[in-house]
């Protein structure tokens, strides 16, 4: 448990550092902030007053602390473009993103692990070669193009599924599959190599010498050991899904956090960009911590402090 606690402390530090990084990154172009909110005809005095009101004229480190104070007190401010409260946007879009991201995350493991196991058990068979070639190709196809192909095939041509929209099951299928696609391919490959490594290990030889059935060894011992590296990279899969969500949500018009963030960056709506970057960064960092905790639980060598 010591490890988990120290990782938690590390996570908090990472959160702090990344909040500074995000704040500065978005503020690098600070002067333009008024361009998004005010019409082009606004006078310089008016702009100046606007900046004052938002606190943009204070030293930047002070702005940071003011800003973090407001976030922690639950009032991160409003959007510059439509004046909506950011907290309302978070609950509304966050829910959508959780549905999409959660489904994709589930697909990555529920599809990836069984396929990887199948490939490792039928090594060098046609099934294995098929799965492995497919996963190589799947990793090469950029997901935005895959999204277009999927829309073209399933929405435009076959008419089975809607091409965009929110938030029913039918609308969820295409974006979730596209979002999970590369993660599935990576998980298949990782599962396969971890299974094969475990199958060739000395401890499996010991269990064979102990007369256990091959089936039992595979299901219990090989799989349990192979899961450890897979779990250890689950945090990366979370990050991957968060990153790709920016693209996939934009393509499918899925009103989630990613779409909001991309639009805000394109429109230079900096309070939105800043706040939702922070939210996504926090999500990634906490996801990494959760994955690390899972790894610690799955691995007895780390579980009990030694």
């Amino acid at each position: 448990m010591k490890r988990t606690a120290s990782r938690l402390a590390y996570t908090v530090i990472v959160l702090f550092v990344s909040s500074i990084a995000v704040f500065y990154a978005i503020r690098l172009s600070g002067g333009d902030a008024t361009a998004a909110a005010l019409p082009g005809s606004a006078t310089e005095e008016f702009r100046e007053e606007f900046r004052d009101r938002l606190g943009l004229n204070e030293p930047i480190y002070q702005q940071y602390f003011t800003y973090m104070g407001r976030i922690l007190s639950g009032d991160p401010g409003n959007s510059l473009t439509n004046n909506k409260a950011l907290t309302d946007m978070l609950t509304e879009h966050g829910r959508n993103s959780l549905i999409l991201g959660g489904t994709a995350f589930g697909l990555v493991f529920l599809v990836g692990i069984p396929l990887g196991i199948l490939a490792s058990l039928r090594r060098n068979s046609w099934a294995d070669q098929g799965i492995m070639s497919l996963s190589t190709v799947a990793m090469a196809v950029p997901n935005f193009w895959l999204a277009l192909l999927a829309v073209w095939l399933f929405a435009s041509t076959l008419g089975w599924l809607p091409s965009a929209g929110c938030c029913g099951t039918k609308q969820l299928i295409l974006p979730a599959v596209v979002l999970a696609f590369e993660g599935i391919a990576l998980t298949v490959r990782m599962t396969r190599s971890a299974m094969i490594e475990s199958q060739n290990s000395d401890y499996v030889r010991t269990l064979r010498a102990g007369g256990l059935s091959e089936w039992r060894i595979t299901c219990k011992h090989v799989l349990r050991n192979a899961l450890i590296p897979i779990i250890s990279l689950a945090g990366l899969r979370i990050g991957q899904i968060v990153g790709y969500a920016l693209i996939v949500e934009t393509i499918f018009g899925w009103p989630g956090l990613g779409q909001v963030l991309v639009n805000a960056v394109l429109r230079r709506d900096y309070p939105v960009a800043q706040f939702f970057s922070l939210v996504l960064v926090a999500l990634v960092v906490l996801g990494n911590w959760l994955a690390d905790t899972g790894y610690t639980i799955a691995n007895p060598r780390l579980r009990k402090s030694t």
Partner: protein
Amino acid sequence: MNAIAVGSRPGEVPSGHDRSPLLEIEDLRISIASDASSFEVVKGVALTVCENEIVCLVGESGCGKSMTALSVMGLLPRGIAEVTGGRIAFEGQSLLSLQKRELRRLRADSISMIFQDPITSLDPVFTIGSVLEEVIRSHRDVSRTEAREIAVRALMEAELPDAADRLDSYPHQLSGGMRQRVMIALAIALDPKLLIADEPTTALDVTVQAQILENLRERQREREMGMLLITHDLAVVASVADRVAVMYAGEIVEEAPVDELFSDPQHPYTQGLIRALPDISVSKGSLYSIPGRVPPPQVPPPGCLFAPRCEHALDLCWEASPELSRDGAKSLRCINAQPFEIG
């Protein structure tokens, strides 16, 4: 005289072929397939292990002794090494023709094996108790509590300290020597008739080595097991073996009861091994080593495999492979054996 004295063990039955044989290996051939080529690493090995005797298989690393042991268990690495000929029989039953399930039933129950590296040989994510229990219950119809009792008894026999408390330990919480004791417990828990130990002490500290060996010998004697001990260490051979088979480049070159092998080795390779033992009674003698190197398995010499390193090699030795000739309890693969003298 030599540093390794062969201790006489009073009250012991002299070894020989008068007991019923447990394991009979005849003309065993094993090939390794690599990228493009395949070559033989075990070339017609014949070996017998009887009840209540310890047979040592000695040789340098890479001579095929571990492959021989693994083939008995049916555990040769799949897709890499393969039995290409010969016969392995356990209590008269051929192991090579057995169904997978029948072979599995024999493992741990009738034949069990201990491996060289105890660090990697135990599943790291399960407690040693659960693994022992799983193996016991896959062969015996017993309850979990009974299985744990058997496991504790086996661990105690393997002299693991605080055996009962260790059941819930993970392998990483034990030292190398303790893990090897767990491996021994796993191997003897079901009272097998034959125990194969592949370099069981090589990876351990010298002080632990002696304890483990002593323990193995005690278990073997009290259960009257047959035991095939594979080692490259003549000191180990001298301290536990009843009979010794010396292996060189995939062939058995000499086999003899242990006393005779050390007092009167016949094959020049065996003689070289014994001469190479450091002698602590001579304070500053130069060490002997067998000249030359083991021939690469890809290019075997035309005749006797040892001829390139042999001081007494005749032209005939280069031309034809000598046969293994039997003489009572002894056998020898050499046509020009010379009397042994310590050089």
